[in-house]
């Protein structure tokens, strides 16, 4: 049984700041990536903090999720560095990061990952709207969510991806923060890795078992979210049961490729759809139009999304940033999460779970999937 | 037993494949099937060999010799065992070796077998007064079918086989 600890502050943020500060102080961390509230708006942006004093404005718990930080961690760690860094990540961000590490886009050699019970976030547009109107609910959001055991009326306000996220709890972070079922204002800490254990034992917090009710609560949350997901996926399956259905679903796509820019596991320097592979000659357009009678422009939108599903579906962590990114409100998160989930199940692969699970298309075994060649 | 060493040399190349046994029409009646018999020869298990009736049951059909993948003279080897048994006058085989000897003696004398004389020689050699009685039934049957000639035939060949038998004995001596 993993040793667990408790930190009691004046409130949740105070407790978590205590933790972050002591990680800073005791683990020779040179900087820490954490969402920080900036002065003028209520928008929180991932911020690289090197002065522990600045952690005062950190707030990882707000329903604000402007981008998946895995991409940032990739930028910060892709090249080897001797400095140790820490990053506070939502579970889906951490999963995306693990996927990126597998494809050499990031390393965790000198990175301490910290994650927590994620209460979800609002769609970006809504959060920003609220922030502009001064109604963004930063403080108090998590408290309210915890009080209801993640089952209050604000659930409906969450981004769909968060609403149906069946893995909102930290597992393989170095330092995992538990919030559910703790006394108000206090948090729990346990190590998800060997390195985490080393750090935590050096932090001199009070060992205390996790609340006895937590396991059941977690199970219930997951169960509820799974059911919510099931409904979403069923509706989606009906809507996109045919290629025509898929075409309609994606009808307003304008090939802006924002979804792929926002996607944490879409790692290409340049999407293949922006390369000369799809750089047709003018006469070709004319000839297609002639052959088909009509040619929907821009071309290759369904092709693009299907290709993206093939490329990143197996690594999709369901963070929902694609939906945030779409200018035309295509419900991409549901689509990609559903497709990704199916693809992943086909290989028994859980993205982000472990560095030891190889990417399914990078390996093979001789005696597997023999049904593929059958009907 | 020099004879057994010679026999062993004859059989050395045997690979114990069992083709001889599978080919043998009398194999079902043998207490030691040919395959085992030959193995015993190679292993110098002479007692066991001469405790068995196998070679006396060989009817010299030559199927084993024909089929042996090593081309071994298996029928000849059976004959050799018979000869050794006869020469050593082993009690176990007396019945058959003396029967055989008596038969040959009659043939030597007359150029063909005279059943009466043959049986008389056999009974004499076995020195068992009760033995003739055990042949009564078979004798009767054979007589009924005219298989036993009582009258003495003309003797055109009498004594002519002496030289032949002598020559064979010489050859056997040399083997």
């Amino acid at each position, binding site marked *: 049984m993993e040793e667990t600890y408790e930190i009691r502050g004046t409130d949740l943020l105070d407790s978590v700041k205590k933790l972050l500060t002591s990680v800073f102080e005791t683990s020779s961390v040179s900087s820490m990536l954490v969402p920080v509230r900036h002065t003028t708006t209520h928008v929180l942006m991932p911020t690289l903090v090197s002065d522990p004093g600045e952690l005062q404005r950190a707030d990882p718990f707000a329903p604000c999720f402007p981008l998946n930080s895995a991409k940032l961690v990739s930028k910060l760690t892709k090249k080897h560095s001797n400095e140790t860094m820490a990053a506070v990540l939502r579970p889906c961000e951490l999963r995306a990061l693990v996927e990126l590490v597998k494809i050499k886009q990031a390393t965790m050699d000198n990175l301490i990952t910290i994650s927590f019970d994620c209460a979800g976030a609002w769609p970006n547009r809504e959060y920003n709207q609220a922030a502009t109107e001064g109604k963004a609910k930063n403080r108090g959001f998590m408290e309210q969510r915890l009080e209801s055991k993640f089952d209050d009326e604000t659930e409906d306000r969450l981004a769909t991806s968060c609403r149906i996220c069946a893995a909102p709890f930290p597992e393989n972070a170095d330092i995992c923060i538990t919030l559910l079922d703790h006394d108000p204002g206090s948090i729990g800490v346990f190590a998800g890795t060997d390195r985490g254990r080393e750090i935590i034992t050096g932090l001199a917090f009070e060992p205390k078992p996790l609340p006895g009710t937590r396991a059941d609560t977690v199970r219930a949350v997951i169960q509820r979210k799974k059911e919510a997901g099931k409904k979403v996926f069923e509706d989606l399956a009906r809507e996109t049961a045919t290629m025509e259905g898929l075409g*309609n679903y994606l009808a307003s796509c304008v090939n802006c490729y924002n979804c792929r820019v926002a996607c944490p596991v879409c790692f290409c320097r340049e999407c293949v759809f922006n390369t000369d592979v799809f750089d047709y000659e003018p006469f070709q357009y004319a000839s297609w139009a002639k052959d088909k009678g009509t040619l929907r422009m821009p071309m290759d939108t369904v092709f693009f999304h299907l290709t993206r599903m093939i490329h990143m579906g197996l690594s999709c962590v369901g963070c929902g940033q694609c939906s945030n990114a779409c200018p035309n409100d295509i419900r991409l998160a549901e689509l990609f999460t559903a497709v990704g989930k199916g693809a992943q199940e086909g290989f028994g692969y859980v993205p982000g779970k472990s560095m030891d699970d190889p990417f399914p298309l990078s390996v093979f075994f001789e005696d597997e999937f023999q049904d593929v060649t059958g009907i | 037993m020099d004879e057994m060493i010679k026999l062993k040399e004859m059989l050395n190349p045997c690979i114990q494949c069992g083709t001889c046994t599978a080919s043998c029409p009398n194999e079902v009646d043998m207490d030691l099937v040919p395959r085992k018999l030959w193995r015993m020869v190679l292993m110098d298990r002479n007692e066991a060999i001469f405790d068995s009736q196998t070679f006396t049951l060989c009817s010299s059909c030559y199927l084993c010799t024909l089929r042996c993948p090593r081309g071994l003279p298996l029928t000849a080897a059976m004959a050799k065992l018979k000869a050794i048994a006869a020469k050593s006058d082993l009690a176990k085989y007396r019945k058959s070796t003396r029967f055989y000897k008596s038969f040959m003696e009659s043939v030597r004398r007359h150029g063909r077998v005279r059943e009466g004389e043959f049986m008389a020689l056999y009974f004499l050699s076995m020195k068992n007064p009760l033995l003739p009685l055990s042949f009564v039934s078979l004798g009767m049957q054979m007589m009924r079918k005219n298989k036993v000639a009582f009258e003495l035939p003309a003797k055109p060949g009498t004594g002519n086989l002496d030289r032949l038998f002598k020559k064979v004995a010489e050859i056997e001596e040399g083997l």
Partner: protein
Amino acid sequence: MDNFEPTIIAFVCNWCTYTAADLAGTSRQKYPPNVRLIRVMCTGMVDPKYVVKAFLSGADAVLVSGCHPGDCHYINGNYKARRRVRLLHGILGRFGIDRERLRLTWIGASDGIEFAKVIHAMVAEIKALGPAVSDMKLVI
């Protein structure tokens, strides 16, 4: 529907299945003209987007066919292809492109008859299933 003639795109590996297809031709094992052979060096080079492209361009079925396990000229390209086809089954199946329409087979160089058989069967089954995509031109 009776007059429906499906179009099947067949990605065949240069070493085994292409040879088999050739053999089917020379040994007069006629197979229906619905199939368009696209020779690739190895099934392991069949990028999933080729398959997607084929369906989006109007193919009613796609066949990927290469060497038997263990026979791949490039040691193991066929095993890699198998994983990709499995992925495609999972993804395309969701959008109505069932696995009947995307097949992976191993056809050895001497299996001209087998090749013809596979094509015959596939054409018959796809005829029964109907076109893969009935009206895509306005949406893709």
